[in-house]
């Protein structure tokens, strides 16, 4: 009984063992399969890690043994690819000096991950330190018992980005300094026109800090008389997204209004939509004062100077007339003297007119009163006039063409008078002058004045049309005038879309031509 029981128990035991064996075999099979899967996965992961553009390394133990490093990090380190199994700071001692060890220790001993962005690191490559910038993370690696066994390093080379950022920061700083350094008042506004920035010059001028200026309405500093116009123009610029230029009186910190040239332009972003308004205001107070001073000076010249001349001229003419009526019955040579006085008055009047014309050109006030007329007729009149006043001049007039023009008759006459008096003035000996009316390039009428005078040197030819330029001569007093006659002539002719042509041979004479578009 006892034996039978034993056998039975043994058989049961065997069954159990068989079962267990089968289970183990199955387990072993599963494990093998699992391991094979793991190997496959590990291989895939390694592939991913190796081919990654990120810099990846795993540092093991307190000595930071390089257990594994992918190709990109090897390349950055520049120490070849046979460094696995070596301690990090043996391979890259320069990193220890840059404080990397502190970061690593913090991770390894305290388990606190370390992340950094744009950290500059220098690597020694071929004996040279090369600076690069990295975004990176140091993360603790654990074993199954949660003990820290090493550090995983994943980094990204962001040198290009950082260099660009550096440049952007540098330029931003430069521009910000520039904007504060400028005497101009610069402000920025959002697309709705609400200000968001005022430079130092604005703050200094108004005596208000930027926050206050931003909160204030922009027009509170504009002179009340200009407010409506300024608001209309600004609103129009805002709605039509266009540039704006205007002169404004702006209040300073003392409450005084000063003239400014205000300009604003819209700035569009890459997509072409409005992103910012840039405005600049430049103080032009002094300029305005000078301008106003000049205007009143002009009035003074024109009124105060012309008035006595008018009176003198009137009396001279009256006396001349009275003497003529009496058939010159007097012993004193009153008539010729008065004649000379009259000539000088005419000269004075011409000088005053030239001075006024010059100012008109500068203030852009010279207006041409165009009318259609026969150029030949006007030239004839002027030649007659000049012949009458200069008895020793001999003018030959040749009509080679009949020319109808649309121009300012008096101004054209003024140019011809200038040419003729120059020809006279600069011909000390032979005062023979030829005036020719002809056609130039089919579409232009031309008047040429030729003399046999002293001629013009090459170097003077370029300059005689400039303001106040006078040809130097041995005797300064030989040639009178302000030196603005030819400048005025050029301005007048160019305002008619014509031009002045000069031909001259030094010592032999000069030839001045002006052209005017023909009226077809």
């Amino acid at each position, binding site marked *: 009984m006892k034996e039978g029981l034993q056998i039975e128990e043994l058989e049961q035991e065997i069954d159990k063992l068989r079962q267990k064996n089968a289970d183990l075999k199955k387990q072993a099979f599963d494990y093998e399969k699992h391991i094979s899967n793991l190997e496959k996965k590990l291989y895939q992961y390694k592939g991913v890690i190796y081919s990654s553009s990120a810099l990846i390394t795993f540092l093991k133990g307190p000595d930071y043994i390089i257990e594994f490093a992918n190709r990109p990090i090897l390349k950055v380190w520049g120490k070849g690819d046979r460094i696995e199994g070596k301690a990090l700071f043996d391979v890259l001692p320069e990193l220890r000096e840059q404080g990397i060890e502190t970061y690593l220790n913090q991770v390894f001993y305290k388990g606190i991950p370390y992340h950094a962005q744009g950290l500059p690191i220098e690597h020694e490559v071929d004996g040279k330190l090369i600076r690069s910038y990295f975004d990176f993370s140091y993360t603790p690696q654990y074993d199954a018992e949660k003990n820290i066994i090493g550090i995983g390093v994943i980094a990204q080379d962001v040198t290009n980005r950082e260099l660009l950022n550096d440049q952007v920061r540098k330029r931003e700083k430069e521009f910000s300094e520039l904007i504060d350094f400028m005497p101009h008042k610069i402000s920025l506004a959002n697309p709705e026109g609400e200000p968001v920035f005022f430079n130092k010059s604005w703050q200094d001028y108004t005596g208000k800090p930027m926050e206050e200026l931003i909160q204030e309405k922009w027009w509170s500093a504009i002179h009340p008389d200009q407010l409506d116009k300024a608001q209309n123009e600004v609103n129009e610029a805002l709605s039509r997204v266009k540039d704006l230029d205007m002169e404004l009186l702006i209040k300073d910190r003392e409450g005084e209004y000063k003239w400014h040239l205000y300009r604003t332009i819209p700035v569009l972003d890459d997509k072409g939509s409005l992103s910012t308004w840039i405005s600049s205001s430049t103080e032009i107070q002094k300029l305005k004062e000078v301008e106003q001073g000049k205007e009143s000076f002009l*009035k003074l010249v*024109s*009124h105060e100077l*012309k*008035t*006595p*001349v*008018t*009176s003198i*001229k*009137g*009396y001279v*003419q*009256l006396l001349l*007339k*009275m003497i003529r009526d009496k058939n010159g019955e007097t012993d004193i040579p009153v008539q010729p003297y008065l004649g000379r006085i009259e000539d000088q008055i005419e000269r004075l*009047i011409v000088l005053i007119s030239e001075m*006024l014309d010059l100012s*008109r050109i500068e203030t852009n*006030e010279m*207006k041409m009163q165009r009318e259609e007329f026969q150029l030949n007729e006007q030239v004839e009149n002027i030649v007659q006039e000049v012949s009458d006043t200069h008895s020793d001049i001999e003018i030959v007039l040749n009509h080679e063409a009949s020319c109808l023009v649309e121009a300012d008759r008096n101004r054209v006459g003024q140019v011809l008078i200038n040419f003729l008096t120059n020809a006279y003035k600069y011909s000390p000996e032979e005062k023979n002058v030829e005036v020719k009316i002809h056609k130039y390039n089919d579409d232009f009428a031309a008047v040429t004045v030729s003399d046999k005078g002293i001629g013009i040197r090459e170097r003077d030819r370029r300059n005689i049309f400039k303001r106040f330029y006078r040809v130097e001569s041995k005797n300064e007093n030989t040639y009178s005038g302000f030196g603005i006659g030819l400048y005025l002539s050029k301005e007048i002719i160019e305002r008619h879309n014509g031009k002045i042509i000069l031909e001259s041979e030094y010592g032999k004479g000069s030839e001045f031509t002006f052209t005017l578009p023909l009226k077809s």
Partner: protein
Amino acid sequence: MARILIVDDDQTIGIMIQDILEFKGHNVVVTQQPATTKDQILQHDIELVLLDKLISGVDGTDVCSELRKDERFKDLPIIMMSALHNVDEICREAGATEFLSKPFDMDTLIAAIDSIVNGESQN
């Protein structure tokens, strides 16, 4: 011959024009006070006024348009004169019959007055 009033604050100009016009046989009155213009015209039965544009403190064009508003003077010949440039049109707009730019020639002045006086007598 005409009875002419000269309104100019510059005495020398006023007297000079007076001398010229009297030489030509006109009867001339000169005033430096533009405010008295109307009174002078009525008092001297003036037929033509020579009016300066820039009179101290007063703009000649205002004097001119003031005269034109008055029914009695709306057809009175007024010659305005000035040493300022580009005021020709302004003066004519204010009602001036003729404009003379200073400094003018004696002959121009006489011609302007003759044409008005003779033109009127022809009418």
